[in-house]
């Protein structure tokens, strides 16, 4: 049942607005993702893939349908419990990096650990290890505006990994990166997945989607294809 899959979405719809002007971003999507999968969600802009990502990440709630995450019905969680889920189970990676400005790379990586109530020393240790993992130990004290796009995205990955989440949710992670940085980031995803981490990447680039082992195409708020590729 629900406990089998890490992510279990059942007939989810999402509608923005109401009446004549209502926008149907998702028109009934069901999806299961098991632990350890590497899934790419593809679609053109306006296809509903970002809405799907927001719902998967507990940033938004479905208009109808159910979302079971790691055996828990997200709709029944309180606002604070949802925050806890976001902090502990999901690591976000955004297209625009979304690092906190004027705050060092290390402090950015520490942030989710702070929200998870870890002690200072513990936080520092884990944040340094995460930065080490993405090869940015020497940039720990740099601020986001002192880092290149690729470096910023690596800091963001370190931040996503710091809490040891079950799922890595990436929304167009390479959209703002050059070819070289794209390769670096994708290689990192490959490594993480091969270590057993569940990775869900939302993208419109076939090059990115090709790295995944399961490809889901979304169009007009519906899943059109769902195939194992790797």
């Amino acid at each position, binding site marked *: 049942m629900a406990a089998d899959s890490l992510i279990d979405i059942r007939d989810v719809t999402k509608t923005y607005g109401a009446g004549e002007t209502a926008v149907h971003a998702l028109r009934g999507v069901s999806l299961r993702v098991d632990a350890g999968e590497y899934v790419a969600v593809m679609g053109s802009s306006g296809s509903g893939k970002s809405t799907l990502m927001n719902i998967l990440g507990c940033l938004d709630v479905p208009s109808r349908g159910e979302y079971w995450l790691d055996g828990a019905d997200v709709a029944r969680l309180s606002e604070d419990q949802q925050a806890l889920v*976001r*902090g502990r189970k999901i690591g*976000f990676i955004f297209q625009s990096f979304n690092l906190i400005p004027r705050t060092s790379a290390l402090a950015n990586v520490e942030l989710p650990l702070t929200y998870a109530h870890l002690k200072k020393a513990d936080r520092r240790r884990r944040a340094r290890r995460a930065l080490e993992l993405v090869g940015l130990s020497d940039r720990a004290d740099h601020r986001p505006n002192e880092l290149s796009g690729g470096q910023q995205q690596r800091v963001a990955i370190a931040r996503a990994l710091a809490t040891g989440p079950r799922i890595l949710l990436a929304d167009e992670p390479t959209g703002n990166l050059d070819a070289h940085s794209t390769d670096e980031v994708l290689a990192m995803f490959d490594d993480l997945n091969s270590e057993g981490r569940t990775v869900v990447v939302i993208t419109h680039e076939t090059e990115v989607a090709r790295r995944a082992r399961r490809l889901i195409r979304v169009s007009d708020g519906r899943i059109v294809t769902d195939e194992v590729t790797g």
Partner: protein
Amino acid sequence: MSPRDLFGAALRGLGANKLRSLLTVLGVAIGVGAVIVLVAVGNGSGKAVQDRLEAMGTNLLTVSTTGGGGGFVRGQAGPSAQQYSLTMADAEALSDHRLAPDVAAVAPVMTSSGTATNGDTSYTVNQVIGTTPEYLPATNTPVANGRAFTKQDVDSTQRVVLLGQTAATELFGRPASAVGQTIKLGAVDFAVLGVLASKDTSGFSDPNATVIVPISTLRATQAGYGALSQIVVQAAGKDKVDTAQAEVTQLLTARHQVPATQSSPFRITNSAQILQTSQDTAATFTALLATVAAISLIVGGIGVTNIMLVTVTERTREIGIRKALGARRRTILGQFLIEATLLSLIGGAVGIIVALVVSRFQLAGVQPVLVPSSILLAFGVSAAVGLFFGSMPAHRAAGLRPIDALRHE
């Protein structure tokens, strides 16, 4: 998130836009400073009035007669007024403890004016007061040099005089050198026994320009044996002033056989009443100033709200990121509340320091007297202002849905 972490995040938030934070702090500082300084000014002016009145003597009742066209002073009043003239016998009766138990001391007073001369130097004394030794302590008039005259001096009509500071200075240059010298009041020689201590000069007449002689001597040499100008009565204590006044009224009414139908011909000025009235006035004044200052504090608080609203709007995306990373509602709330409270607390501290400095100087002729409670109050209010005026923006930030916050450009 520990308080320390919240504090650090708040400090970084404030540091992000230093000029803006500084101006907001300034708004609160002006408000807090204004409250403290203006309350101190109000308090200071109240104290000044009180000091002036206390210099006149506390627990003091001044009895004089109304009506009779004012002629009673020199004993030239008409028959009806003469009936109510104050006499030496009245003064003696008032000092009888059986008749007026709450009266501590009584001093009959006659006044005259005249010119005092020391050789070629002459000085127009604005008031020659003839009285008894009780007058000095009752009116809070200590002798600075030499000594006061005694009951024996009065009984034996000694030609001795006490000079006010100004009178002594005008006649002898140095007040201290006047003691033991002789002056002429009119045509009569008086030995200078002592010089009175300087008194606060703010009043209708300069108390330092008076000279005091035994009442018997004044009657014999200058003023004649008419009615007394007034009788100065000192009550036995601060809380006995009202009963003493009642006793004096009753005694004088009885002695002068004032008909019950007539309003009292005696006017009794009560120093405690004057003090009370002026204290009430000062309190009103202080309240008025404090209100004005409180308004400026509120304006400062609105400044905090305004800036925090701008900050929340500006950092909406940051709030979204924090929520995506697991920040709870109350964590966001706490961060922005602490930012707002820090702004106003720093403002409060600056305001207090400025107020402490400013209130060392005279403002509008008033030496401000700090009220410690107003400092505590202003500081407490500034903290409350931060919490109160910061709570709306902070709640707005905390209530943002993560997805809306993240989408914000």
